[in-house]
């Protein structure tokens, strides 16, 4: 006999309920709705038992090959996730709860969010952080809107060193808004072009968007540039890679006003693009303009410490079309995974991972640049990712290595005209010396071929 999976009532239960309602069947529940609206049925297969469903999905999933040795990053990185992250974030009390609208019944989610906000502040060197946004790209858009609201200006300068995927998202999101969007080409050295900013910065500019390390992996020291930005009373927005913040100078120390980024590297699997974790931090004075949920500390009548969603007057459920953003559901569970990850690795472990990433990149950089014809694309300062210029088109070389089970990096030519030969390679603690040596060797022979 056919059942409706997951539904809890028995036919006996339903009979009782029909009687209470004085109806004979389900259809009567919908009597008020015009019949012609009724559909003829849904033409999809019959339901599968749990076992058959699992077998089907396993079969489909097996069409992926996950054993590719991965040197492809470009903003999304293959870091190790300690087992306890899954064990804890998969507790039903966490993942089957809703947004903590009833604080007394949600202190677990709320305190974890408060601890997460604290961690983001400490990573970025900023004063306040929100409880999460969808991803690094939407976070960056929200950051721009926030800055323009704050400065009451409508011009934004976006550095070409910002992840091109994010720049496409910004172009998409701003298309219907009165935002004057302008991109600033990078310098020869592959970093923010000081002179170009000299030229572009004026009183019409409300926000400047920089990324460090930038898409090419290049590190920069942005304090002076940010001072210049502040001189025209614009806000400096910096997009960052949190794992790099284990070692790299903080945006806060450089004077950034708004910091956003992709938190995937903090305990989220790559998962073919999501769910990821957009984070945002800023200065306390701008908090009322910040989008997204914010958790704050308070007390109950007996003076017991507790946590609540606060400053909600910014949000859509109160302000509707006048809200700072339309966001409602965010990615709280990903934020939870991030704080669990950061607590597990801890102060020292985080440094440790940073060093391993940087050391592996350094090792690979020097092996690769010894191959003749392979040139550094830009400066030699990077965290765990760098760009090299190959003697031939990168796409062909990469696909040759893909066939040998290696994702040798990302060919940036797809997004940058004239850089068809440039290859972007990323290194995490997961990559072994052997894997790096093999990749280098195969890449060398692919170049010869």
């Amino acid at each position, binding site marked *: 006999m*056919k059942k*409706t999976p997951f539904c809890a009532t028995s036919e006996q239960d339903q009979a009782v309920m029909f009687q209470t309602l004085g109806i004979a069947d389900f259809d009567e*529940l919908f*009597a*008020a709705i015009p019949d012609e609206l009724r*559909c003829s049925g849904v033409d*999809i*297969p019959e*339901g599968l038992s*749990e076992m058959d*469903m*699992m077998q089907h*999905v396993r079969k*489909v999933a097996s069409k*992926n090959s996950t054993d*590719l040795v*991965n040197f492809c990053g*470009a903003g999304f990185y293959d870091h190790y996730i300690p087992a306890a992250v899954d064990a804890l974030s998969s507790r*039903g009390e966490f993942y089957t709860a*809703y947004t903590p609208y*009833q604080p*007394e*019944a949600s202190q*677990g989610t709320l305190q*974890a969010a*408060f601890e997460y906000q604290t961690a983001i502040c400490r990573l970025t060197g900023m*004063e*306040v952080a929100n409880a999460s946004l*969808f991803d690094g790209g*939407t976070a960056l858009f929200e950051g721009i809107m926030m800055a323009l609201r704050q400065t009451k200006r409508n011009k934004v300068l976006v550095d070409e060193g910002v992840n091109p995927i*994010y720049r496409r*998202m910004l*172009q998409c*999101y701003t*298309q219907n808004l009165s935002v004057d969007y302008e991109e600033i080409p990078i310098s020869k050295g592959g970093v923010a072009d000081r002179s170009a900013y000299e030229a572009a910065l004026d009183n019409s500019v409300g926000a400047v968007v920089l990324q460090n390390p930038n898409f090419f992996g290049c*590190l920069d*020291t942005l304090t002076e540039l940010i001072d210049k930005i502040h001189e025209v009373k614009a806000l400096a927005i910096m997009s960052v890679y949190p794992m790099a913040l284990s070692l790299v100078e903080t945006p806060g120390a450089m004077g950034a006003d708004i910091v956003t980024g992709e938190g995937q590297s903090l305990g989220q699997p790559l998962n*073919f*693009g*999501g769910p990821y974790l957009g984070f945002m931090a800023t200065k*306390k004075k701008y908090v009322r303009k910040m989008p997204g949920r914010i958790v704050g*500390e*308070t007390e109950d009548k007996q003076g*017991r410490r*507790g946590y*609540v969603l606060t400053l909600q007057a910014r949000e859509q459920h109160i302000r*509707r079309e006048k809200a700072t*953003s*339309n966001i*409602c559901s965010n990615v709280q569970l990903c934020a939870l995974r991030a704080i*669990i990850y950061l*607590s597990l690795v*801890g*102060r020292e472990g985080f440094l440790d991972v940073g060093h*391993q990433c*940087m050391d592996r990149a350094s090792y690979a*950089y*020097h092996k690769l640049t010894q191959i003749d014809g392979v040139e550094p694309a830009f400066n030699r300062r990077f965290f765990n990712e760098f760009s090299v210029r190959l003697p031939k088109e990168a796409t062909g070389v990469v*696909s040759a290595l*893909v066939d040998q089970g290696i994702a040798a990096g990302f060919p940036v030519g797809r997004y940058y005209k004239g850089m068809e030969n440039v290859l972007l390679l990323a290194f995490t603690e997961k990559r072994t010396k052997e894997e790096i040596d093999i990749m280098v060797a195969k890449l060398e022979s692919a170049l010869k071929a």
Partner: protein
Amino acid sequence: MKLIYEKSSPGRPGVQMSSIRISPTEEVPEKYLRSQPAELPEVSEAEVVRHFTALSRLNFSVDTHFYPLGSCTMKYNPKACEAAANMPELTGVHPLWPQLRGGGLLTQGSLAILYNTERLLSEATGLAEFTLQPMSGAHGELTGVMMMAAYHKDRGNEKDHIIIPDSAHGTNPASAQIAGYEVVTIPSDENGVMDFEQFKEALNEKTAGVMLTSPNTLGVFNPRIKEICDAVHEVDGLMYYDGANFNAIMGRYKPGDMGFDICHLNLHKSFATPHGGGGPGAGPVGVVEKLRPYLPISRVEKTKDGTYTLNYDEPKTIGYIAPFYGNFGIIARAYAYILSLGCDGMLGTSNRAVLNANYLQEKLRPLFDAEYKGRCMHEFVYSGDFLKQYGLHTLDLAKGMIDRGIHPPTVYFPLNVSEAIMIEPTETEDLDTLERFVEVMEELVELAKTDPEKLHEAPVSTPVGRLDEVKAARDMRLSYS
């Protein structure tokens, strides 16, 4: 409970991360590096496990409590859907592999899941095409209204506003605004649906479209939907269907058939993916044929030889609304859920969701002395106004429920009902749970009459009592220091 930072002590070892070392060939100069390491907690793995296990136990959740939170569809999240989506073959895939030549072949499994899910949702909603990229309901709304804008721009239509009923979720107007539209709000009539006359007055050549939730947040299905659609199409406006409540009608009605042009679904509501304490969710958007060109890129396509590819070449697309293909992990859960339901399961599920809601509406009517306004759909709204005579509010009723092990329904929403209490039991609750809920409600209303103070003090069984939200906003203690 102590914060993880308060449990930290210098030198306490966490998880062993250090692995086989590779010595760097060159060090990065000081000036690029931070002077002080980030002050992350220093606690043992065991302590971290205890901390977050203890935190989890401070939550109410579907796995531990009845959670009839109206408009949020807190149905059971099947463990098998979790297991299916957590297969390492799915979670381990880098989203950029398809952009490496030949790399797409390495992700055929994930692409197949995306393609199949789009097809299943199209069939379920009666719409031509779907994008799975939106990462929440609100994100889906924004994507939808941006396609609306692209359509009108493309057609040279001069549109400046979107019509939205006052019972709509706050995300609707907020999303419309980001797409560059004015919002015209229409009040609800005595039946709780958008006032038809006022709607007709507001409708004109400059109307880009109408955003409707049906059944709406009062759980009422607008019977004049076809008329509304026709009127809007008259002025080349587009009908947007907020499908957050699709679970009430799935298998029975299709937004496409009803005349809607755009529809978003909340996979984290109708399709049983977990809410995660506030996300991640997914808000796929379906459109009619004429809107296909405006869909965000990339598009997953199936070639003749049965392989799946990504198409980025769509001249009229609104562009990139997500970095990649959406919240794949959530989409995979919904895919597993839809495969489990199948055709009959969809109807069976909405039938039971609506039956459970009507049963509670009926049993609770005397308590709220509400007059009969006809059947509800998957949820219903009553007013707690009667509590005022005892010096109480809906909030007090809600807090009283917490002490009785039930998560409160949605309160003070929708905004157009005073002291609103919005109840959605969902189909995954059995009759015993519904009966228990009724008993608790009766007990609380009795208590309101006999000893209202008790309700003022509630909750008393939780780790903290009612928290001072004013203080929170004033002090702005937003991080630990």
